[in-house]
């Protein structure tokens, strides 16, 4: 799954650590999501969407393999 998390985080001037603390996950999880090595759970995706005030589908893009 593609995502714009790194770009949005930069726009808001958050470090990975800041974002991890706000969302309630580890910094490693934010890093793995940004590198698209790990897909977040639905609650985490909703928290990210709420934080950046954007719909989930504009942050995460599902791509059929």
């Amino acid at each position, binding site marked *: 799954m593609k995502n714009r998390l790194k770009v949005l985080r930069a726009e808001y001037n958050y470090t990975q650590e800041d974002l991890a603390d706000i969302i309630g996950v580890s910094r*490693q999880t934010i890093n793995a999501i940004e590198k698209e090595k790990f897909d977040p759970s639905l609650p985490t995706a909703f928290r990210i969407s709420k934080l950046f005030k954007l719909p989930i589908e504009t942050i995460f893009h599902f791509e059929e393999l």
Partner: protein
Amino acid sequence: MKIERKKNLYNLAVWTWSWVATMAIAAFGPKYIWDDHAVLTALAVSVNFVHGILMIIANRRLFNNFDELQRKIHLESLALTLGLAVVVGLSYSLLDATNIIAYDAEISNLVIFIGLTYLVLVTLNTRRYT
């Protein structure tokens, strides 16, 4: 969340060490401390058992406090460790039963194998997502 995780990790470390310590007392106490007194030996084994249960509870608390990625890493590592422990453990036991190995298959060897396998797999899986 971080503070709670540190607290849970600290609790697990405390209970693990106390479990190891009570295991050592239960293993060596009968011979070196209380001269094979049956009641004291039974008491030492019971105390060790209770500490083991408390260690498991502490581990469960830590696990439940993990976030989704950490949980995935540990679950994958646990699944592989369990599978390998069963397969390797039974093969090891068969080698002993068929006298292919000259010594007895000790459970402690399997415990060491499980511990090292889990450690290696958690490290590898953590690297995979970094």
